[in-house]
């Protein structure tokens, strides 16, 4: 009996969840027979089962609903909004009752008669509510689901744990094997076992995946109810429900997503009258879309409402004493928009029951970031707002940094760390005023804390320099955290820590690395609040102004590596491109046709200077990287690191050289990184003539280090990032990568009339309509830039 009841409860709950959307869709299109049938079937099933299980209240409710639905099916009455509301009300009550039964609590003794009466209200009576506000829901593809079975979650967790144990045991076995003498046969068998275990782990982690549909299931209902309450009309579109993500992740995203949707309806989309007045369609469009991108799930929520009024935000921030008017005047639009994430700031004038419950965007951001996600806003005042949530595919694996402090190891999510410096770095200055530590990095002052102090640990004396991490906390104010050292970068399997430990507020979870020593994951925002750091906004705009002044003051210098070629010449190569320098066994070098390569870490890497024969046993090689591609450059000796001018003193491009620079009275040839990487793809250099080039992705390494120098050398005037003053000449060319930046760029282009050149990282076009240019296709790139400038 108990089992039957359990089955009934979980089945009812599941169907209810799935049906909530269906009912709303059915209301929008009452003639939709399939949906009506689905709802009818639900009540029918409930009625049947509960008669058997002796649940009289269920029976009465479902019977009443079934009667009405049968009438509608027979065409005796229409599905007017009042009826739909009443049916929804019944479904809610059944949900409540189910919950009560599941928990073994007493059934809430409310008046079911009222609900049933509402259902049977005379049809001809005008509906008491405001004008019907049906919500149109884009119909999703027919769901002929694959065969499935229901499993208790605990069983899957048990399986998961078993597999984790297996992985740990395998690691230990491999350690033990390595200690012994090598036995190829044994190694082979172990290798096979290893692969099996890895496969198994992959498959098991898939059992935790769930369709995003579940996340979406509650939205239509919420949109309908809110729209009614507020008298707004909303066209809802849901897309990408078949994307899968980790079950736990779904749970974690529900709240932020709900909040954003509520916000969009409450504050974003205007009332029909207002919309008519500004020439928009009466029904506001709300679009929720999920898609997978690499190992992330991207959820975008866009509306065509009023957008965020940044001027109001700034006023509020000044009013709240968070911001000085001077600082506000220097802020960029993006900085202003960022204010929405400040605690306690909202553009809503009054607290409403819908979204103004003291839970602001700061909490949404904190929640999203806690699971290793990122939230981004794309605001078009008066035209709408698009919020993008990027969350990792699974909650359990995040990239993290392992840091050492007070003799212990801790992990911190990599996403929280903005930069890492050593405390002997010249750019960093630490001062102590009245007990407060302040770290000044490149002219920006950060609150500084020592991790050991916050956690109440001793700080043992250490020989080397300490590491200072700039960490961005949940409230968006970065601060500096001092630790003994940053040891490692790892993919960490994170599990929740016990509530006792979570209660400290400074830990976000724990992880068990391969060495078997549990490690705690630090919560960046929690540490900031534990240390009671001030949350006053830093004057970022001021910093930028200073930076620009610095840049204009003299010739721009960059760090470069001075080295000696195998052939004896001394040359320079920009340091930022060099991943590392290592000594490589010459036996690893090889040649195929006229392409030289070297085998490193089990991969073949192109040797860009084409050398494969050496007269020594080991050769020093520079490992180069442009973000996606790798190359190897064998040299005779690495000499030192020097500062060289960004543009060589004498520009003379030929082959892989871009010119000659004079360093300390010695003239050295400068390697052209563009040519180096372009040669990987078989493209040669040509020269171009041009005007101003705007590089939209100023933060991107490739753009800074490879594209910008190339364009400069080709005689273009290069601007990194979009100009602060927003003045864009129609003759300018805007270069950007495909993806996020391109959307902004497209809008900029429309506004100013300048041309946009889109670059892509892959040699192949995404489709016949893909107008972007492969970023190492120099001919096409130069042609595109010069095309409109003639």
């Amino acid at each position, binding site marked *: 009996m108990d089992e039957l009841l359990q089955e009934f409860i979980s089945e009812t709950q599941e169907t209810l969840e799935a049906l909530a959307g269906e009912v709303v869709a059915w209301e929008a299109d009452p003639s939709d027979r399939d949906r009506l049938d689905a709802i009818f079937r639900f009540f029918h099933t409930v009625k049947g089962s509960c008669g058997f299980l002796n649940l009289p209240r269920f029976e009465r409710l479902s019977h009443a609903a079934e009667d009405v639905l049968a009438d509608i099916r027979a065409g005796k009455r229409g599905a007017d909004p009042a009826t739909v509301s009443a049916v929804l009300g019944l479904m809610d009550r059944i949900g409540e009752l189910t919950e009560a039964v599941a928990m073994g609590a007493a059934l809430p003794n409310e008046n079911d008669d009222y609900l049933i009466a509402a259902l049977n209200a005379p049809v001809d009576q005008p509906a008491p509510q405001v004008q019907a506000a049906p919500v149109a829901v884009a119909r999703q593809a027919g769901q002929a689901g694959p065969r499935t079975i229901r499993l208790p979650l605990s069983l899957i967790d048990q399986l998961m*744990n078993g597999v984790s144990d297996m992985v740990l045991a395998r690691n230990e076995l491999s350690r033990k094997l390595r200690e012994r003498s090598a036995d190829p046969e044994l190694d082979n068998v172990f290798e096979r076992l290893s692969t099996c275990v890895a496969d198994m782990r992959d498959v098991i982690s898939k059992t935790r995946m769930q369709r995003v549909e579940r996340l979406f299931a509650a939205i239509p209902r919420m949109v309908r109810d809110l729209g009614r309450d507020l008298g707004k009309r909303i066209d809802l579109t849901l897309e990408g429900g078949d994307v899968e993500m980790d079950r736990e992740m779904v749970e974690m995203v529900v709240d932020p997503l709900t909040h954003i949707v509520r916000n969009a309806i409450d504050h974003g989309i205007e009332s029909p009258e207002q919309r008519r007045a500004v020439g928009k369609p009466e029904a506001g469009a709300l679009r929720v879309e999920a898609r997978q991108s690499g190992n992330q799930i991207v959820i975008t929520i866009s509306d065509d409402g009023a957008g965020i009024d940044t001027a109001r935000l700034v006023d509020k921030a000044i009013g709240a004493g968070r911001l000085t008017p001077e600082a506000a005047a220097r802020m960029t639009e993006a900085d202003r928009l960022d204010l929405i994430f400040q605690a306690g700031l909202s553009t809503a004038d009054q607290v409403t029951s819908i979204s103004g419950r003291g839970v602001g965007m700061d909490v949404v951001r904190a929640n999203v970031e806690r699971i290793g996600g990122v939230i981004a806003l794309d605001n078009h005042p008066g035209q709408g707002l698009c919020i993008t949530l990027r969350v990792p595919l699974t909650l359990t694996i995040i990239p993290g940094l392992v840091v050492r402090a007070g003799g212990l190891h801790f992990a911190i999510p990599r996403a929280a760390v903005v930069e890492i410096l050593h405390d002997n770095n010249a750019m960093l200055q630490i001062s102590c005023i009245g007990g407060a530590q302040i770290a000044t990095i490149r002219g920006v002052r950060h609150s500084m804390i020592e991790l050991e102090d916050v*956690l*109440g640990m001793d700080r043992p004396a250490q020989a080397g320099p300490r590491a200072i991490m700039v960490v961005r906390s949940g409230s968006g104010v970065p601060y500096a955290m001092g630790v003994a050292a940053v040891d490692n970068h790892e993919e960490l399997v994170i599990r929740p820590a016990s509530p*006792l430990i979570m209660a400290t507020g400074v830990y976000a979870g*724990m992880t068990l690395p391969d060495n078997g*020593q549990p490690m705690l994951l630090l919560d960046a925002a929690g540490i900031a609040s534990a240390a009671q750091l001030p949350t006053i906004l830093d004057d970022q705009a001021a910093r930028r102004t200073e930076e620009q002044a610095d840049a204009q003051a003299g010739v721009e210098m960059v760090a470069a590596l001075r080295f000696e070629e195998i052939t004896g010449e001394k040359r320079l190569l920009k340091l930022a491109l060099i991943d590392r320098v290592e000594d490589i066994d010459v036996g690893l070098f090889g040649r195929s046709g006229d392409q030289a390569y070297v085998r490193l870490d089990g991969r073949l890497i192109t040797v860009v200077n084409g050398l494969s024969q050496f007269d020594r046993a080991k050769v020093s090689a520079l490992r180069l990287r442009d973000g996606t591609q790798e190359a190897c450059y064998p040299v005779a000796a690495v000499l030192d690191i020097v500062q060289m001018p960004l543009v060589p003193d004498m520009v003379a491009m030929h082959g892989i050289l871009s010119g000659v620079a004079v360093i300390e009275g010695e003239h050295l040839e400068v390697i052209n990184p563009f040519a180096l990487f372009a040669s990987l793809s078989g493209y040669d250099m040509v020269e171009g003539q041009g005007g101003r080039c705007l590089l939209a992705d100023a933060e991107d390494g490739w753009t800074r280090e490879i594209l910008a120098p190339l364009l400069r050398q080709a005689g273009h005037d290069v601007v990194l990032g979009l100009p602060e003053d927003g003045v864009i000449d129609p003759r300018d060319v805007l270069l950007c990568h495909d993806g996020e930046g391109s959307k902004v760029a497209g809008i900029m282009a429309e506004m100013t009339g300048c041309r946009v050149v889109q670059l892509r990282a892959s040699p192949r076009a995404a489709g016949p309509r893909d107008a972007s240019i492969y970023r190492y296709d120099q001919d096409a790139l130069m042609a595109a830039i010069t095309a409109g400038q003639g």
Partner: protein
Amino acid sequence: MNRLYLFATLAGTRIAVETDEVEAVVKLTEISPVPGMGAHVAGLSALRSRVLTIIDTAALIQGMASPTRDAGLAIIANIAGHSYGLMVDSVSDICRVPEGELPLRGQLDRAWAPYGRAIVEQDGHPWLLVSLASFIDGGGQAQAA
């Protein structure tokens, strides 16, 4: 009432625990401390692929960290979905007690009051029946107060 009880000593006091609550008793090897916590959380310890939160029960009761933290015995329990290890001085026996729980007599020390529930008689000695969950729930409250 013919339940199984685990008999142990904790902070010099004889205690009994219902075996339903007990998952295992293990010898602790290595404990990684959790800085920033009170003395009652000894740290984290790995038991195969599980991570246990080790509670220094003696510290919880006496307010002082016990001197020999490593290589002690711990009762492993799953409380509210998390695995905990509760450190004990020694474990003596597991057996059935036909009489079951007997009501408490006398005034419990204030330190023990949140945890003790009843008395279980065995070998002619009274053993204080404690619930493991109370060390977790009560511990948090004691810390907050």
